[in-house]
């Protein structure tokens, strides 16, 4: 086909310093108007595939390449990046790193400027693209002042300016609230309908399916496990590795054991304590913010000493700021924050760290020491713990996070650990100060479905922990693991209650940029009112059990796939 955009033939690639190939014997074609979803767990070769298509491999990433990648009929090895950039536009995962212009117009013009485009043509495209991408209101603004969602849309506009035939999009949903993510997907669908091709890499398959992909490439350890239509993919995909719609998971459970998920236990819940006891954390009409901007507009809430509380809401609504005020990281302007019944005014962050273990989104923001042991001893030393107690503290922290099973872990340099292990180390660092409560900021960020779920399970089984407060965009993760939800919008709490109750008001839910996932619909359909919200595997097992009892009673239960 002469119009074909990409032809990959038996591509294998090994990075220069790697011992194993990142991609093995991959063949693929991409035609105009086609949407290809690339799914798979972390390390499956998705990023390498993107680099091979957009020419960074071999132009920027040297290594051993066999097979061929043709863009517009010509091998990428024989084209300059400048030529490939005219056909392939790439949206990287983190828009903050991708945006190089200081203003919105400068960012949009960056690509055309590099291609030597005429000034009047650039202005014409800026007008056209800003309308298409829905960012006309952003024109004239400085990029440093944009929100995460606005940056994502601007990064997309920067690619649209080049009018490529193919859009390659790397995990665009990772940093977006569900409704902003839906908006981006709709732009991509529109592009495909206009005849452009789209390659989207995403492990949040359920949401990516809104894009109505024509085909799915399912990768695992660099190899193609499946390439074909969506229906076929849903039959072979491992539900523990990628996030699939509930109906699909249920069907797969009915067909027999499903990967790791079949053996996964129900998510544990911390023991709920005495409600009469003073709350661990109380906000009394709190106003707080950054610089001149007020983010929290009079928040009042009591978080119990034995609760798992998830804070949900749109990008920039103040979720993280709320929990930062509890640690004294963001000062309170008006109102009061109390910890265990006492105001935190005048207390240092260090003293609050013995009550709250704060785990930041990215572990690399804190790791600095030569060894894991030094890293774990840093906090206790700061708090003047006796030297003879340090070894016991380190051992306990490693044991509570299951890191002690890794060989020679104490002497390992922290930055040589995998991302998942670094997340657990960040957890261990917080636990080394022996706090009864953990605060988790986006615990699933940067992790695929399997590792995020595993991480949450591990957190909930940490012995001696009383409560967990978390901020997340992952609706299902929050609903399945929390005992209580705080719904945030525009710096205020708009709903507060058990997961099953908070999701009942659909209008309120969607007004907080949250979507009704298939799991929410399925819980509403299958779960009895007195039951807690169940995660995918637990709910699937519940339905199977009902199927069994219904057939045992000689009748077929109401269990048709997709019924919710």
């Amino acid at each position, binding site marked *: 086909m002469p119009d074909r955009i990409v032809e990959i033939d038996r591509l294998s690639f090994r990075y220069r310093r790697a011992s194993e190939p990142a991609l093995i014997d991959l063949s693929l074609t991409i035609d105009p108007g086609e949407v290809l979803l690339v799914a798979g767990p972390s390390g499956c070769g998705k990023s390498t595939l993107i680099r091979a298509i957009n020419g*960074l491999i071999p132009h920027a990433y040297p290594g051993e390449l066999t097979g061929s990648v043709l863009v517009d009929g010509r091998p990428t090895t024989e084209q300059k990046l400048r030529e490939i950039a005219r056909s392939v*536009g790439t949206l990287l995962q*983190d828009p903050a*790193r991708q945006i*190089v212009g200081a*203003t919105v117009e400068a960012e949009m013009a960056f690509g055309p400027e590099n291609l030597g485009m005429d000034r009047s043509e650039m202005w014409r495209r800026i007008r056209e693209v800003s309308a298409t991408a829905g960012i006309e209101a952003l024109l004239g603004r400085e990029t440093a002042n944009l929100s995460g969602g606005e940056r994502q849309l601007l990064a997309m506009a920067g690619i649209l300016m080049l009018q490529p035939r193919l859009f390659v999009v790397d995990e665009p949903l990772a940093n977006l609230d569900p409704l902003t993510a839906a908006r981006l997907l709709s732009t991509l669908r529109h592009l495909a309908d206009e005849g452009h091709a789209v390659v989207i890499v995403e492990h949040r398959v359920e949401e990516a399916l809104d894009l109505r992909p024509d085909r799915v490439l399912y990768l695992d350890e660099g190899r193609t496990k499946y390439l074909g239509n969506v229906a076929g993919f849903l039959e072979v995909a491992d539900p523990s590795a990628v996030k699939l719609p509930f109906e699909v998971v249920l069907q797969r459970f009915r067909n027999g054991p499903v990967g790791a998920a079949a053996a996964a236990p129900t998510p544990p819940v911390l023991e709920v304590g005495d409600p009469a006891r003073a709350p661990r954390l109380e906000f009394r009409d709190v106003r707080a913010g950054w610089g001149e901007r007020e983010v929290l507009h009079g928040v009042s809430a009591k978080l119990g000493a034995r609760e798992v509380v998830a804070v949900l809401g749109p990008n920039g609504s103040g979720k993280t700021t709320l929990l930062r005020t509890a640690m004294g990281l963001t000062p309170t302007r008006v109102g009061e924050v109390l910890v265990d019944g006492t105001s935190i005014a005048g207390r240092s962050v260090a003293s*609050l760290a013995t009550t709250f273990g704060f785990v*930041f989104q990215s572990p690399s923001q*804190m790791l600095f020491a030569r060894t894991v042991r030094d890293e774990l001893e840093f906090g206790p030393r700061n708090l003047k713990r006796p030297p003879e107690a340090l070894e016991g503290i380190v051992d306990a922290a490693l044991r509570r996070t299951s890191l002690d099973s890794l060989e020679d872990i104490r002497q390992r340099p922290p930055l040589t650990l995998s991302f998942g292990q670094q997340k657990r180390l960040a957890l261990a660092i917080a636990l080394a100060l022996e706090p009864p409560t953990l605060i988790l900021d986006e615990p699933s960020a940067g992790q695929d479905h399997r590792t995020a779920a595993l991480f949450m399970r591990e957190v909930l089984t940490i012995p001696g922990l009383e409560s967990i407060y978390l901020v997340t965009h992952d609706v299902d993760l929050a609903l399945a693991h929390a005992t209580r939800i705080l719904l945030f919008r525009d710096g205020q709490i708009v709903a507060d209650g058990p997961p099953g109750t908070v999701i009942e008001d659909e209008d309120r839910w969607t007004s907080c940029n949250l979507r009704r996932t298939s799991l929410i619909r399925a819980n509403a359909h299958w779960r009895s009112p007195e039951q807690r919200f169940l995660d995918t595997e637990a709910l699937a097992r519940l339905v199977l059990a009902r199927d069994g009892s219904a057939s045992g009673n000689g009748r077929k239960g109401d269990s048709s796939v997709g019924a919710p």
Partner: protein
Amino acid sequence: MNFAPRYLGRGSWLARRDPRVLVLAVVFFVFAAIQVWDIRLVALLLVLALAYYRSARIPFREVRRQWFIAILFVSLLVFGNGIFASGRVQRLPDGAVQHIYGYLPLLGTPISAESVTFALTQFLRFMAMIAIGFPLAFAIDPAAFGVTFARLGVPYRFAYAIDLTWRFIPSFAADFRTTMDAQRVRGMDLGERVGGPLARLRRQVPILVPTIVNAIAGAEDTIDAMDLRAFGTGRRTWIRELRLDPTDRVVLLAFVALFVVATVAGFTTSSSFLWIPPFLIPS
């Protein structure tokens, strides 16, 4: 903490000038100012510089911290060097004698009318330079730095690096703040003032290492993003059009004239020598 340059002079008379004028004004002014040692003329230069600065309409409350740091730095530099370090005075007319007030205890450094005048002259000169220089950071559109330097003959890769610096200072500052917070929740006391400079620097390792590691990792993504939009692969155009209007030409000409006058005066008058105010000379 916010290190980010902000476009505080937006819309002002100076911000409406071609940014090349602002860059060249600094160059000509500095070369003019370093040739003048007569404190009366240096004071005049300071007045000119402040008038120029005022035309940028930079709100003082937004930059008072930067002014405070600049004045502190200049004071330490000038008075520390000029008076306490050696007491030597340059740019005295031939045969001039020093009028000594006394000597610093322990150091024995002489303090004279000449050394005081020297320090004051230096102080005024540096303040004038800073007043001329501040609009560079606050009255040029952040998106125009690259094209400004490119049009002044700087190779575009270097010129764009200036753009990128302005662009990423806020990001770097944000990462720095996050890392500080991440270490504070581990009990790190950022205000601890114990020990010598080396010990204090060592205590900053938990902040510096993650910030630098993250900056390097982030730079890799940025380089990829720039490569993927064909940066540095051939002829480049700039969306921002720079054109000198008549006012720009007049301003530029004024600074060129200032430089020429200062240079000629240096050879033909006593402007390149210290002038000691009579009231400073002890009777």
